[in-house]
């Protein structure tokens, strides 16, 4: 909402400097988000009167104008065709800064000779003053403009751009802002005059109003004017409308807008002659009824829409927009002005259903008070009469089927203190509320009965009054204290610490954390072989239409986009949610971890194939080791991952994740050029295993014996089975693979695995002989169960 301070002065005296006023308004809830100063930089420009016009001796198109500035009467050369004797004009003295009419640049006026005649200043166009782009003529001021007044004082203004919160429709008006300013600065508010002579026939003889649906229209007032002449509004109305961001149309429409800005009450003017039968019915639209609105769009209505109708059909959508057929036009001579109160929910439903928002609907939907209708109607009628010399019918139509009691709220000083944490005396409370128009009666020694002024539709509870008290005192005055009550019992959510540990561990292993969008495109999900995702009904773009069911597509995309500028390794991970649909319920949100590894970072433990598979596996293994969870890996299948290079990750019998090489076809579909390895873990599945109570084991007291062996086994045999048999021995504490070989030294179809075996007993020192015997037993089992032979 834009507010001209010049206009605001009609209702309240402004006693604070502009910046201070803006600060006070902002602090009290009416945020001043912008301040525009009109006429700043108009030094040395004053109001003058043209007292003599003579032809220029050397130029046909130029004339010499002598301008009375009060104490002096300089002469200037002027080329404007509209220059005339007796005009009041804006005269720039030498030294004034103006906008050059041709170049648009700011220039300083200096004395100059034009075609041989000295020009002692300049009569300004609107463009030269920066008011508009008009440079074809000089700006002519009203006849009553006082000579010698600096033009900044006469035309200048300050425009506040205010952010009005949705609870304060009353502040979408000059009077509302004036009330705020008045309360903040201790000034009285003056309402505009609204007396006018009623010379026409009684209004009831000319028109009638029937409210068929009082639940949607609690009050409908109307006045009727005849013999009006539709024309342009006077300059002052136009200027004020423009300053507040509205476009002038004609004197009738401009007044309805002017009064809407003044009081906040939307008004509508109908061409009375177009109201068939002179009878207005406020009713729900019939299903399929049609109305062409002022914006020349034909709209099909339904019974949820409230319309203003005449005998034949709708002539306006109530509170949203008028109909084209009853619009006030140049030939209109009699008008009916509507000032009504419509149900806020109904208006919002209608305007959002029709995708039609207007100044009127955005006010009505916030809830207006019915008492405002009559004030605004009288004011508008008075203004139109003043501007058009029309005649007002006697009386006004005032149909008011639903009357509301004025709200009265009990407020004690202890309640104020209970909420604010500060003692505000009863006299102070009464004074503050009084400044905002609340009427306070003392109910008990420290309790008031507060009656809410009609324009405040947002105040219903004592808490609302407490806010009024606080904001007028100023939040700066609220003391600063700390919470001092009991700290609530801690109820841990185990997944949060687990998730944060996983983040730290993975970053510690060199993976960069990313956060990708929860919303992805259908294509991305399909490329990651995922289906059945939850869809958004009103996506902003198809790129963000579905809730991801897996973190994979986001990471694959992140890898792909980073490959374009990264030569080295790209190791990424994300910890985030997936959203799995559930019938008739919110989707299940699962906390997942996904990592993607592309390019080597760590020197491999052994040479040979597998690429980064074992980097990825190493990360997963070490992660679980840090979490204290034992996991095993089993070959498995996954549509996104390459067959034969994919492992399921198991904790106990529970599959908690998967690990593998991204399938070349998937890589290609994401435009990934290098091999990539991915793991995905379900934190919800892992969490239960982290809660196991861990016990310490005593340090080994007896020495170890170390033996290295190399075994030859079938190429396809999983190594885990060898390790399983070796570590199955009660005397073996650990078996570590340290070499793999297949080639000339071993037969075809076989591979050699070299293990370092550590023998240790918790109860005694093992002799060489015992170790040798145990190793023989192990080798025997390996041979029997796996066909393994010792490589010599």
């Amino acid at each position, binding site marked *: 909402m834009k507010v001209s301070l010049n206009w605001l002065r009609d209702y309240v005296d402004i006693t604070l400097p502009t910046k201070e006023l803006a600060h006070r308004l902002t602090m009290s*809830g009416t945020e001043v988000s912008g301040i525009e100063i009109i006429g700043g930089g108009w030094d040395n420009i004053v109001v003058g009167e043209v007292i003599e016009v003579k032809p220029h001796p050397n130029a046909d198109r130029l004339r010499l104008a002598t301008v009375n500035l009060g104490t002096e009467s300089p002469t200037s050369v002027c080329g404007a065709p509209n220059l005339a004797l007796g005009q009041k004009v804006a005269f720039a003295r030498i030294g004034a800064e103006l906008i050059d009419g041709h170049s648009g640049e700011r220039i300083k006026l200096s004395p100059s000779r034009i075609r041989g005649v000295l020009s002692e200043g300049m009569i300004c166009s609107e463009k030269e003053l920066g008011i508009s782009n008009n440079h074809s003529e000089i700006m002519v001021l009203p006849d009553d403009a006082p000579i010698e007044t600096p033009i900044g004082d006469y035309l200048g203004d300050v425009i506040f751009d205010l952010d009005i919160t949705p609870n304060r429709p009353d502040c979408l008006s000059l009077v509302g802002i004036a009330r705020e300013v008045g309360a903040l600065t201790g000034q009285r508010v003056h309402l505009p005059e609204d007396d006018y002579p009623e010379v026409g026939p009684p209004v009831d003889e000319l028109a009638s109003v029937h409210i068929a649906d009082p639940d949607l229209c609690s009050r409908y007032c109307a006045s009727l004017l005849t013999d009006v002449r539709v024309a342009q509004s006077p300059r002052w109305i136009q200027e004020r409308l423009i300053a507040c961001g509205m476009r002038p149309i004609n004197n009738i429409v401009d007044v309805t807008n002017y009064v809407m800005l003044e009081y906040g009450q939307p008004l509508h003017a109908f061409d009375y002659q177009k109201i068939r039968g002179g009878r207005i019915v406020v009713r729900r639209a019939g299903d399929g009824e049609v109305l062409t609105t002022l914006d020349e769009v034909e709209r099909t209505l339904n019974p949820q829409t409230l319309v203003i109708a005449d005998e034949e059909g709708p002539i306006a959508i109530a509170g949203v927009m008028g109909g084209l057929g009853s619009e006030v036009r140049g030939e209109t001579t009699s008008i009916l002005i509507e000032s009504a109160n419509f149900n806020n929910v109904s208006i919002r439903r209608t305007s959002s259903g029709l995708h039609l928002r207007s100044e009127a609907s955005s006010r009505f939907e916030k809830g207006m008070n019915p008492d405002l209708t009559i004030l605004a109607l009288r004011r508008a009628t008075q203004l139109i009469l003043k501007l058009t010399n029309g005649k007002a019918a006697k009386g006004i139509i005032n149909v008011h089927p639903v009357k509301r009691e004025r709200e009265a709220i009990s407020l004690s000083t202890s309640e104020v203190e209970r909420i604010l944490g500060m003692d505000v005396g009863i006299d102070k409370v009464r004074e503050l509320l009084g400044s905002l128009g609340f009427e306070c009666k003392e109910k008990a020694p420290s309790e008031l009965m507060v009656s809410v002024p009609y324009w405040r539709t947002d105040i219903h509870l004592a808490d609302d009054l*407490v806010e009024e008290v*606080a904001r007028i005192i100023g939040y700066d005055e609220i003391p600063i204290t700390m919470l001092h009550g009991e700290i609530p019992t801690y109820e841990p*959510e185990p997944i949060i610490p687990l998730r944060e540990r996983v983040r730290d561990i993975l970053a510690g292993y*060199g993976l960069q954390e990313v956060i990708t969008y929860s*919303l992805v495109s259908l294509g991305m999900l399909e490329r990651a072989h995922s289906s059945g995702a*939850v869809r*958004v009904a009103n*996506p902003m773009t198809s790129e963000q239409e579905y809730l991801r069911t897996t973190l994979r597509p986001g990471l694959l995309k992140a890898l792909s986009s980073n490959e374009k*500028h990264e030569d080295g390794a790209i190791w990424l991970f994300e910890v985030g949610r997936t959203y799995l649909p559930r019938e008739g319920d919110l989707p299940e949100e699962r906390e997942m971890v996904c990592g993607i590894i592309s390019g080597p970072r760590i020197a491999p433990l052994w040479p040979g194939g597998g690429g980064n598979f074992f980097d990825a596996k190493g990360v997963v293994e070490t992660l679980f080791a840090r979490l204290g969870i034992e996991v095993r890996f089993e070959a498995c299948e996954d549509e996104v991952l390459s067959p034969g290079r994919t492992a399921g990750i198991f904790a106990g019998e529970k599959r908690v994740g998967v690990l593998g090489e991204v399938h070349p076809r998937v890589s290609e579909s994401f435009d990934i050029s290098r091999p990539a390895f991915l793991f995905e873990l379900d934190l919800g599945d892992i969490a239960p295993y982290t809660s196991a109570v861990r016990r310490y084991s005593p340090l080994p007291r007896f020495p170890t014996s170390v033996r290295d062996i190399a075994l030859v086994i079938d190429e396809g045999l999983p190594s885990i089975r060898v390790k399983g048999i070796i570590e199955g021995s009660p005397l073996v504490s650990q078996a570590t693979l340290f070499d793999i070989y297949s080639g000339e030294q071993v037969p075809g179809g076989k591979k050699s695995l070299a293990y370092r075996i550590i023998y240790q007993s918790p109860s005694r020192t093992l002799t060489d002989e015992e170790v040798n015997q145990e190793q023989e037993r192990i080798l025997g089992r390996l041979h029997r169960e796996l066909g393994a032979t010792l490589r010599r």
Partner: protein
Amino acid sequence: MLKKLDEIKSKAILELGSVGGLNSLEDWRVRYLGRKGELTNVLRGLASLSLDERKVIGASANEVKALLEAHLEQKRAALKEHELSMSIELGRIDVTLPGHPLPCGRLHPTTQIVREICAAFVAMGFQVVEGPEVEWDYYNFEALNIPPYHPARDMWATLWIDYETETGERPMLLRTHTSPMQIRVMERTRPPVRVVVPGKVYRYEATDATHESMFYQIEGLAVDENITLADLKGTLYEFARRLFGQERKVRFRCDYFPFVEPGVELAIDCFLCGGRGCRVCNETGWIEIMGAGMVHPNVLKRVGYDPSIYTGFAFGLGVERIIMLKYGIDDIRLFYGNDLRFLRQF
């Protein structure tokens, strides 16, 4: 014999002078002091001498032995010192060569600041809880005092889930703020309550340098007997001090959110201009970082808390905005675009 001892002494000392390494020093020791060394040989020959002679020569031989051993130790120390300084000299390296690189991962800046913010509140007795990102209209709006067709719904442009009930309503949405957790937490516990809720929120919003469709918020809620607006002010001032430092100024002004009354907006003085007014702070000198207020009695009633007994405060802040201010980031789209050249800076 004495002459012989004298000869050995002179010869040994002379030879010791030319010993240049620990190995040849050992040879020298074996030659003169070893079990078969020259001095030992002399001592061995004592057996054939008379007792008196033995006494004289024996004493003299021991003197020589002690002398040679002293020389030996001296020489050994000198040689060790020499070898150490030699090996140090040879061991000189170019310390400006790069270290062997270890993989270096980092946490996303959002994760880092979410943790920092939560930690500030945890230190004040708040507990971190989380809630669903896909929500019912009831929790996101209705229970927060924002019924259907409430004009304040415009404050949150909403992404709705493609799900309709039999009556044709769309009750499911992507939460537009973390505030629904106020209701969920109060529904399942009794006062006192003190929680912070970090999480993703979503808006129906065209993205540009300052708008994202997905971002993080942190919600806070404290409910108990005797909680006041002054406590809210104290809590938020303390938070701002911890996060932004002692020197930042904090502004507490009246604002409107349907689920609080009185309502508050918290702003800090502009990082860039220090409060004089600039483009970043829209010439106001202040940057809004959080909405807050006293929990609305209607909200308390809704969850069965008696507003005549309990009061509380709630707040909600946008995480990315704070990170952008902190690091001077001028485009919010960088956050979830995941360009490593951006992420590696944090």
